[in-house]
């Protein structure tokens, strides 16, 4: 029976990775749509909202079934606990992607201000963090998440910088207010996605070592 359970855990990991990649792709697609001012591309991220939500419900139930039927302990228990967090974080990342995609649609007919400020660069950093967090979950490789604290600080600094720059452009010309407000919100959503990547990293660390860490 233990063998069957461990096969189930491998399957859970595989399906959770698929969901995590879906959330990550929704975010990447949304940012690309914002950069290219492409409402159709944005629409393709928005339509995946239902799919990722269904995945979340299904995988959470899968975890609960495995807990109820097998009473996992030690590393198996920590793996399922971590997986529940990865599922939740992936849903949140996907949903932020959807929200950014909606903004991309809304402002797609207006020229970007200051080449979207630092949003493309910030998005690259955040998506790299998400990729590394997912890869660490996939491979149990903790070296991938070693520098997360410093990377998160950089993302926070960029959000602050976009906020200040946005305020400056708004003060210069009230016509900029709508787009700059959207940029500030996009920066905020990207920062939240980095926080979710950190949350995945913290849980992967717990899964591997049994020790809790906090990435600040």
């Amino acid at each position: 029976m233990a063998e069957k359970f461990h096969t189930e855990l491998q399957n859970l990991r595989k399906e959770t990775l698929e969901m995590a990649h879906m959330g990550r792709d929704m975010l990447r697609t949304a940012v690309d749509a914002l950069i290219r001012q492409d409402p159709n591309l944005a629409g393709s991220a928005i339509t995946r909202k239902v799919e990722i939500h269904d995945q979340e419900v299904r995988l959470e139930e899968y975890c609960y079934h495995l807990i109820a039927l097998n009473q996992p302990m030690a590393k198996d228990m920590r793996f399922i606990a971590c997986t529940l967090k990865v599922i939740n974080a992936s849903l949140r990342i996907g949903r932020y992607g959807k929200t950014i995609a909606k903004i991309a649609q809304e402002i797609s007919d207006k020229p970007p201000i200051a080449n979207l400020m630092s949003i493309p660069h910030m998005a690259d950093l955040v998506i790299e963090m998400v990729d590394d967090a997912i890869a660490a979950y996939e491979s149990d490789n903790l070296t991938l998440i070693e520098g997360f604290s410093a990377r998160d600080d950089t993302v926070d600094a960029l959000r602050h910088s976009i906020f200040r720059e946005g305020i400056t452009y708004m003060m210069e010309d009230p016509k900029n207010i709508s787009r700059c407000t959207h940029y500030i919100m996009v920066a905020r959503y990207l920062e939240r996605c980095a926080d979710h990547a950190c949350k995945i990293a913290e849980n992967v660390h717990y899964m591997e070592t049994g020790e809790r860490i906090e990435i600040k």
Partner: protein
Amino acid sequence: MSESAIITTNNVNLWYNGKQALESVSMKIPKNKVTALIGPSGCGKSTLLRCFNRLNDLIDHVKITGEITLDDKNIHESGTDVVMLRKKVGMVFQKPNPFPKSIYENVAYGPRVHGLKNNNQLDAIVEQSLRHAALWDEVKDRLNDSALGLSGGQQQRLCIARTLAVEPEVILMDEPCSALDPIATAKIENLIDLLKQDYTVIIVTHNMQQAARVSDFTGFMYLGKLIECGKTVQIFEHPKEELTENYITGRFG
């Protein structure tokens, strides 16, 4: 384990007919706590349990080295009164084994053997022991009925009451629920939780979920060695030894 220890084993080795069953076991059993011993069949957990009240003395060709202390006194010291030791360290076995006597006589048997004759005192001990074993309400109106007419779970609680009647300090339980259904098991587990207020409990179980539910400390044994011993939550959440991890996650055993 920083709690005060009631039993300490120091480098205990045991051989049955020259075959080593325990190897260098050193551990401390904290007072008024539940300690569980887990491990695959034949790992020595029942053998270790039986060392604590010298039940292994009853088996031929057993050799023991090392030191076991109860309340800081070596239990193998010459002059140790083994009957008194077994009074202090009571035992409940896998299969309920009531005497073919009345419920009352089962509980009164131990105090009588130890010389108590006063009927009023015996009545009080029987009631108190049955109450402590969470059996009083179910049997108070039929104390003179045969103990063999009780259900399996009730018989096991009667055996616990019989152990409590001689006022032990430590109660050893060797797979006490393995012959019981889930409801009777739940009652025994609740009882173990209550008993630790007044007694130290050491339980051998092959059921890891049970060990996780009822114990404060857990020792994992493998091939006669104590591999790891620590707080139950640590053992089941993040054991230090890979062998423990592999056993409790079902990767072997």
